[in-house]
C-alpha cells in the first residue's frame, strides 16, 4: 500500500493515536532534558557525524580490518550479499549444532532480512528475548518503532496477550512489574537451555574486532554470555574504525534513544575465550543494498544512522500515524530515507513524501543526518525516474515553471487566477478543499497596489 493510504487507515484508530501520542510526547520531553545537560552536545554530534563519514569513506578498508581483528580473536567472519545469504549462514550454524531453537537479542537487521521466518522454514524456532519484541512475536504482529517496537500497545493490551500466551495459568494485572515478571519466567528457561544465540550489533570496532550491543533489559547480556554459540548479523555500515570512537557514540546513543545518561547494559565482546562466554562466535557482514546507498552522494548519509529513534519521537507525522504505515522495520523520518534506498525507489516511491519537511528530525539526529535534504533529493530521483510518463502533476509543475520564468506571463496568470482559471488557480486541488477552505484570490495583487501608489 502507498504511505498515504496506510496512514489514512492508521489515523482512524483512536487507541493507536492515544498510545502513540502519549509515548512519543513523554520520551520527546525526556530526551530534550537529558540532552540539555551536556554543554558539549553539539560538539559530540559533530564528532559522531565525522566518525561515521570517515568510516563510510574508508568502508572496504575498515571491513577488512574488522575481519582480521575478529579472526585474530578466534571468531569466524562471513560475508553476505543479501538477506537470503545471511539467513542461510545463520541457519547453517544452528543446524551444525543441532539446535531446534535460537534465542535472539533485539535486532533490526534480522527483522530487515526476515531471519525468523527463514529459520522457521529450516525447522529452527527463533525466540525473541527483548520484552517488546517478545510481545510482537507472541501476537504475530509487526514492530512499529525502532526502539520500542510495541509502542502502539498499552499495558492492558499486553496483559490480555500474555494471559492468552505465556501466562495462561493465572490472571495478571496491568502493573508493569507483574507483566515483566511473567515475561521473565518464560524467558529464563530459554536463556538456560537454548545453545545458540543470534544478535545484531550497534557497533563493531575494526581496530579490535569488538562487537557492541547497547540495551536496557539485560536480555541481550544473557544471550551474548550464556549460550555456547553466538552469531551476530550486522549491516556493514555499523563498523567504527577505532576503539576510541565508542566514547562518542556511547554518549550520543542512550541520551537520544531512551533519554538516559547511560544505558543499563552495554555488552562488548571480542572473539571467544576458553573460560567465559560463547565457545564459538560468528560475525555475518551484510550488504543488502548498503553499497548501493553508499554510491549516492546525498543519500549515503542515511548510513550514518545509529538507530536511536529520536527522529521518530519528534516527528509530527510518525507520532500520529505510527510505524506500520511505513511498511518497513525502519519507520519514521529515517525509514522514509532508508527504506527507499535499501529496497530501491520503485519499491517505496511514496515514502520520500511522508514528511512536511518541518526539520524536527534533523535537529534531533545525534549524527546530524540532514533528513529533509535527503527526502528532497529522493523526491527528485523519483520524479526524474518517472520522466516521460504523463502525469497531471508533471504538467502542472511545468506550466507553473513557465509562468514563473517571465514576470509578464506571471502577471497574466495572476489575473486569470482571480477568475479561478489558469496554472496558478489549478493548485486548488481536492486534497486541500476536502478538508480546508481556500482563501479567495484578492481583487488586487500586491504588485497592483504597488503600482497604484506610484
Amino acid at each position, binding site marked *: 500500500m502507498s504511505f*498515504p493510504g496506510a*496512514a*489514512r487507515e492508521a*489515523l482512524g484508530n483512536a487507541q493507536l*493515536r492515544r498510545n502513540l501520542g502519549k509515548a512519543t510526547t513523554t520520551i520527546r520531553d525526556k530526551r530534550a532534558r537529558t540532552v540539555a545537560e551536556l554543554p558539549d552536545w553539539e560538539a559530540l554530534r559533530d564528532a559522531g557525524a565525522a566518525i561515521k563519514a570517515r568510516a563510510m569513506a574508508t568502508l572496504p578498508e575498515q571491513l577488512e580490518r574488522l575481519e582480521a581483528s575478529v579472526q585474530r580473536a578466534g571468531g569466524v567472519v562471513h560475508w553476505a550479499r543479501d538477506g537470503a545469504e545471511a539467513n542461510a549462514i545463520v541457519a547453517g550454524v544452528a543446524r551444525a549444532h543441532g539446535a531446534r531453537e535460537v534465542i535472539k537479542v533485539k535486532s533490526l537487521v534480522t527483522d530487515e532480512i526476515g531471519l525468523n521466518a527463514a529459520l522457521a522454514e529450516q525447522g529452527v524456532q527463533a525466540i525473541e528475548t527483548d520484552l517488546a519484541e517478545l510481545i510482537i512475536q507472541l501476537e504475530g504482529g509487526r514492530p512499529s518503532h525502532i526502539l520500542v517496537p510495541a509502542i502502539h500497545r498499552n499495558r492492558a493490551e499486553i496483559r490480555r496477550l500474555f494471559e492468552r500466551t505465556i501466562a495462561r495459568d493465572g490472571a495478571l494485572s496491568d502493573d508493569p512489574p507483574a507483566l515483566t515478571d511473567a515475561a521473565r519466567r518464560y524467558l529464563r528457561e530459554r536463556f538456560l537451555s537454548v545453545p545458540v544465540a543470534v544478535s545484531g550489533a550497534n557497533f563493531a570496532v575494526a581496530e579490535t574486532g569488538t562487537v557492541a550491543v547497547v540495551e536496557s533489559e539485560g536480555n541481550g547480556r544473557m544471550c551474548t554470555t550464556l549460550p555456547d554459540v553466538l552469531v551476530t548479523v550486522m549491516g556493514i555500515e555499523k563498523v567504527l574504525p577505532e576503539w576510541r570512537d565508542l566514547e562518542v557514540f556511547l554518549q550520543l546513543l542512550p541520551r537520544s534513544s531512551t533519554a538516559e545518561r547511560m544505558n543499563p547494559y552495554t555488552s562488548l565482546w571480542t572473539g571467544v575465550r576458553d573460560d567465559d562466554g560463547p565457545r564459538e562466535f560468528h560475525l555475518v557482514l551484510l550488504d543488502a543494498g548498503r553499497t548501493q546507498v553508499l554510491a549516492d552522494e546525498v543519500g549515503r548519509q542515511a548510513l550514518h544512522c545509529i538507530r536511536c529513534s529520536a527522529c521518530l519521537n519528534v516527528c*509530527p*507525522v510518525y507520532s*500520529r*500515524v505510527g510505524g506500520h504505515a511505513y511498511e518497513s522495520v525502519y519507520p519514521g523520518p529515517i525509514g522514509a530515507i532508508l527504506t527507499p534506498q535499501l529496497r530501491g525507489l520503485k519499491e517505496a516511491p*511514496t515514502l*520520500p*513524501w*511522508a*514528511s*512536511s*519537511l*518541518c*526539520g*524536527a528530525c*534533523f*535537529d534531533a539526529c545525534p549524527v546530524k543526518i540532514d533528513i529533509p535534504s535527503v527526502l*528532497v533529493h529522493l*523526491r*527528485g*530521483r*523519483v*520524479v*526524474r525516474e518517472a520522466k516521460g510518463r504523463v502525469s497531471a*502533476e*508533471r504538467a502542472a*509543475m*511545468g506550466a*507553473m*515553471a513557465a*509562468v*514563473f*520564468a*517571465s*514576470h509578464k506571463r*506571471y502577471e497574466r496568470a*495572476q489575473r486569470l*487566477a482571480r477568475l479561478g482559471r489558469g496554472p*496558478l488557480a489549478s493548485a486548488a*486541488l481536492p*486534497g*486541500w478543499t*476536502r*478538508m*480546508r*477552505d*481556500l*482563501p479567495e*484570490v*484578492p481583487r*488586487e*495583487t*500586491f*504588485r497592483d*497596489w*504597488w503600482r497604484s501608489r506610484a
Partner: protein
Amino acid sequence: MTAVSLFVTCFNDTLFPRAGRATVELLERLGCEVDFPERQTCCGQMHFNSGYADHGEALTRRWEEVFQGAEVVVSPSASCVAHVRAHVASATGRLFELSEFLVDRLGVTDVGASFPHRVTLHPTCHSLRLLRVGDRPRRLLEAVRGIDLVALGEAEECCGFGGTFAVKNADTSMAMLSDKLRHVLATRAEVCAAADTSCLMHIGGALRRQRAGVRTMHVAEILVARE
C-alpha cells in the same frame, strides 16, 4: 535611510497582498526606502521541494539575477528566505526575513504599533529550524501596545502544511492541523499570527471551514497596526 529591496514572494503577491503592503508600510515608517523589483516571481522552493529540481534551480537562479544589485533584501516569508539562503550563496548577509531585519539590522523591537486584541503566535517550522529566528517575532509582538499575547501549546510543532504534503498526504496533514487547531482554540485568541502566510493559509483554511471565529494575520500586519 536604509535602502531595502522587497522580496514579497509569489504567494503573498497573489494570495496575501496585505502581508506585503504591511511590510512596505512598516519598513517605510521605520525610515527605510523600499524598492520592489517588479521582475520578481517565484524563488523555486515549491518546485525544488516537490522533486522538480530542474525547474526549481532555474527559478532560483532567476531570483539571484533579479536581486543581484540589491544591497539589502527583506521578505515577509521565513520559508522562502530559508530556501534562497540555502541555494544562493550571494544572498548570505544581505537577505533577511522581516523579524531578523527589524531586530538585528534596525535594532528595534518596539515598532510603535498598537493592536488591542488577543493574539497567539504560531512560530513556524522554517522560522525556527531553518532560519533560527528564535524569539524575535514574539519580542516584536510583545512590544505592541494593548496586545494580549497568549502562548500557544506545542507551538513548535508543524501545522501540517509542508507545501504539496498537504495535498499528497492530506489525511496526515489534517491530523497535524487538527492538533494545531486544538491548541489555537484553547488560547481563546481572536487572532493567530505567524511569519509565513503559507502556514496561515493552512491554519486559516481550517479555522474558516469550522467557522471558528479566529482570524489569521501575518506578524507584519499586527506590527503596522495603529488601532
